């Protein structure tokens, strides 16, 4: 019996101790008419060897791709030590650290993660993570509303230059909370929030303004201006940032005169494999005075009865298992294992390593853009500075070009037209530090080959 230790003799002894004649008798309280028969349309058990062979075949049905796509998920080099340590059984098979004395390993890791994320964002505090970047934004919007009870508005400015997937998730999560998400348009030539679009809202009241950096197009937003605009309008500013970029770019805590109020985003670039989209890890940082409105787990440092430093879950009265219907969120986990990996990644990279990754990403994407736009008919869509992604316009249907590249083993980027029909046949491309000059040349040569078809 896979994973069940009971011998026949033990089953007999245990049933005798219970006073039951059979295992089936233990289910006697279930009305017989509810019982189901054998679920034979499920498969038969396979041996571990057979499952391995099956899954190796499935893995082989996944084709390997030379990746030039970003759009919210990024291929980065993950140091071998990251998962070697994160997957140790003591981390992998531990539960949420409710029993602090039996969980100092995970708790200290989470505290260090909170410290690193707060430092990277130049914010006061970080929670111990949320599901992913998009749901972190949803929680950040709800949190911003809770921290802004004086605002008469429940309107939130949501830039169209924000990742459309994030826009969608924010709508799903806030739909039933009387929140109005208001579109803020972008400048068609610069690819960042349009000054005139913002000006059009001058004088209106908003509970919060969302500010992406870099934005979905890879373009850098004028974050100081935007943060100050929010502050002037009594709105909370919510930064949505790429954590790698924050080693190079001004962090949310330093935006404008007062800093952003909240900072959130996707932690996947910090040592988490692409894995077709998850599990990833959302981060959420805030000002100190908002800490009681933070959703999710928080770990605090304190001392034990002998005066030794130790770690424990902090401010639990915010949470559902205590406050139930009045909690800051219904979330009752963090992405513990991903947090562990991200902590290891940040510790290994250090300030210099992470900055090196950011700089290499920018340099590679610059080189890619330069090389691709030398191809006849390919041109950059936007003129403003970018981080590690850029939109290019193609002389023919972007989706068919992508299909042609895919046949040659290249994931050539992400087509923008579904979400931004106004941009025409535009492709969002990305070259992280994992792409080398030969990769870029191979992409360019292949694109040149595919385009005329």
């Amino acid at each position, binding site marked *: 019996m*896979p*994973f069940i230790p009971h011998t026949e003799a033990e089953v007999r002894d*245990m049933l005798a101790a219970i006073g039951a004649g059979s295992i089936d008798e233990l289910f006697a309280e279930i*009305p017989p*008419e509810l019982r189901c028969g054998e*679920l034979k349309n499920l*498969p038969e058990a396979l041996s571990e060897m057979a499952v391995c062979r*099956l899954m*190796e075949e499935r893995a*082989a049905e996944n084709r390997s*791709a030379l*990746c030039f796509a970003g759009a*919210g998920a990024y291929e980065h*080099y993950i140091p071998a030590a990251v998962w070697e340590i994160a997957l140790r059984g003591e981390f992998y*098979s*531990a539960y949420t650290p409710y*029993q602090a*004395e*039996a969980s*100092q390993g995970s708790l*200290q*890791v989470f*505290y260090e993660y909170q*410290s690193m994320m*707060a*430092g*990277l964002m130049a914010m006061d505090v970080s929670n111990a*993570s949320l*599901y992913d970047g998009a749901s972190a934004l949803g929680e950040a919007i709800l949190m911003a509303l809770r921290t802004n009870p004086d605002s008469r508005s429940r309107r939130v400015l949501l830039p169209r230059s924000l990742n459309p*997937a994030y826009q969608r998730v924010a709508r799903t*999560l806030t*739909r039933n909370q*009387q929140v109005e998400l208001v579109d803020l348009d972008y400048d068609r030539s610069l690819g960042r929030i349009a000054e005139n679009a913002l000006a059009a809202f001058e004088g209106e009241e908003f509970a919060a303004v969302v500010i992406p950096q870099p934005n979905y197009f890879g373009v850098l937003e*004028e974050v*100081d201006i935007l943060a100050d605009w929010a502050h002037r309008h009594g709105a909370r500013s919510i930064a949505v940032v790429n954590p790698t970029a924050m080693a190079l770019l*001004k962090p949310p805590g*330093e935006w404008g005169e007062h800093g952003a109020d909240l900072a959130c985003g996707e932690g996947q670039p910090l040592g988490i494999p692409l*894995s077709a*989209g*998850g*599990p990833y890890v959302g981060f959420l940082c805030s000002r100190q005075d908002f800490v009681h409105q933070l959703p999710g787990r928080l770990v*605090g440092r304190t001392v*034990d009865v002998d005066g*030794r430093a130790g770690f*424990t879950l902090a401010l639990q009265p915010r949470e559902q*298992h205590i406050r139930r219907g009045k*909690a800051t969120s*219904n*979330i009752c986990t963090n*992405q513990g294992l991903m*947090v562990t990996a991200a902590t290891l990644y*940040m*510790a290994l990279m*250090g300030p*210099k*390593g992470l*900055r090196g990754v950011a*700089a290499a990403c*920018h340099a590679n994407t610059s080189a890619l853009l330069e090389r691709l736009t030398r191809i006849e008919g390919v041109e950059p869509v936007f003129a403003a500075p970018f981080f590690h992604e850029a939109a290019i316009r193609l002389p023919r249907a972007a989706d068919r070009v992508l299909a042609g590249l895919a046949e040659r083993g290249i*994931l050539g980027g992400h087509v923008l037209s579904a979400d931004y029909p106004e941009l025409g046949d535009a492709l969002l491309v990305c070259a992280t530090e994992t792409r080398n000059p030969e990769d870029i040349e191979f992409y360019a040569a292949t694109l040149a080959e595919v385009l005329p078809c």
Partner: protein
Amino acid sequence: MLIFDRSREGRACASLFPRLPDDSHGLPGHLLRQTPPPLPEVTELDVVRHYTRLSQKNFSIDTHFYPLGSCTMKYNPKVANALARQPGFAAVHPLGTERFGQGTLSCLYELQDYLKTLTGMTAVSLSPAAGAQGEFCGVAMIRAYHEARNDHERNEILVPDAAHGTNPASAAMGGYHVREIPTNPDGDVDLDALKQAVGPKTAGIMLTNPSTLGVFEHRIPEIAALVHEAGGLLYYDGANLNAILGKVLPGDMGFDVIHLNLHKTFSTPHGGGGPGAGPVGVNARLQPFLPLPMVAKSESGYRWLTEYDCPQSIGRLSAFAGNIGVLLRAYVYIRLLGYRGLRRVAEYATLNANYLQRKLVEAGFDTAFPARRAAHEFILSVQRQKKEHHVTALDFAKRLLDYGFHAPTVYFPLLIPECLMIEPTETENKETLDAFADAMAAILKEAAEQPERLKQAPHHTPIRRLDEVRAARHPDLAWKPAPGAAPQR
């Protein structure tokens, strides 16, 4: 010692630096960071040694028995991890899944099917990232259903008072008022109270069965009929599905929507708090509202269903498609067990729970529902010991750590005073259960003879009881560089 305390300016893992052509990036100065982030500057050896030693301070399934009620801390097969982490699965970019990830999609498609069968539902979406997100989703679908019928008066969700805190919290996130239904002394829902509560304002009811009290709610057909007749829907919280897997299908009990906790029933790892996965299943009337994406099969291969296919969907919960790595582990688990093995899960989880309950009753503990059969978990109350010796459930919990056992869940459900909720799971053997019962018996004796041993426990863990008051009053949530420290370069 924190990793920051090991940091020295100029130390680094040099082999991790990417080679840069040059570092002049030409980005506008006012958008740049002025001081490097205060990350630690350490070597790979520092990191490996620091975190390896930290890991050893954890209890975990791989090292300890973890009878944590309502959490189903069963063994997580190593092969599931090994297979899900294969480069062939790990390297797929989410936006390239259809073109480069047909193998991944085939597993997800089949998993949707398996979960349909195991729950008796019509359709499944795998996208919720955790149980609580699945609950939110279920509530949102209930809302979408009523709204689609222009039934706008229903603003209440009924929740038994014994429910997980996530139930009312999720109902609130879905914009509903929560109405609590009391519990009978026998652990079942108070049907009279339910009859009074249910009505035209009822959007639905959220139930776990077996309940958080560890007993099977056997009047579930009546409850279902009551709620359905009033126009409400039934939500099944899958937290306790391990108790009835392959024995009773939630769909057959009358539930309209269910979430599953793959990190419980399907043995994906808890990972110190996550990632989990909380797929939702629904019957036909809620099918149009399922969250996106889902996987469909066509002649040209597997593909994602999107808003174009499912215009009534409640939408998306994450930027891509949920915790796929977790889903792959659950897929492997199901393939390893097969339908017979899945059914055995419930059988042996129930056998272990009833056996351990019997041992503990024999040892002198009071069980919350002595007249009932335990499902896969059961509840002790040490209220009597508290009165007699001033020792609490927390004291028992902490003292167990000294005996090398993780503590049970304590003080939940809220309506049983001084309770310990114990779930042994099917993967633990009889010797472990016996050793745990012996430890509990020894602690019970200590409680009478030397209660201070309990009150000051634990004694042998890396740290002892923590000053929670200080943690709450003066929250220290992040290390900061010393104010006087030289600015890093």
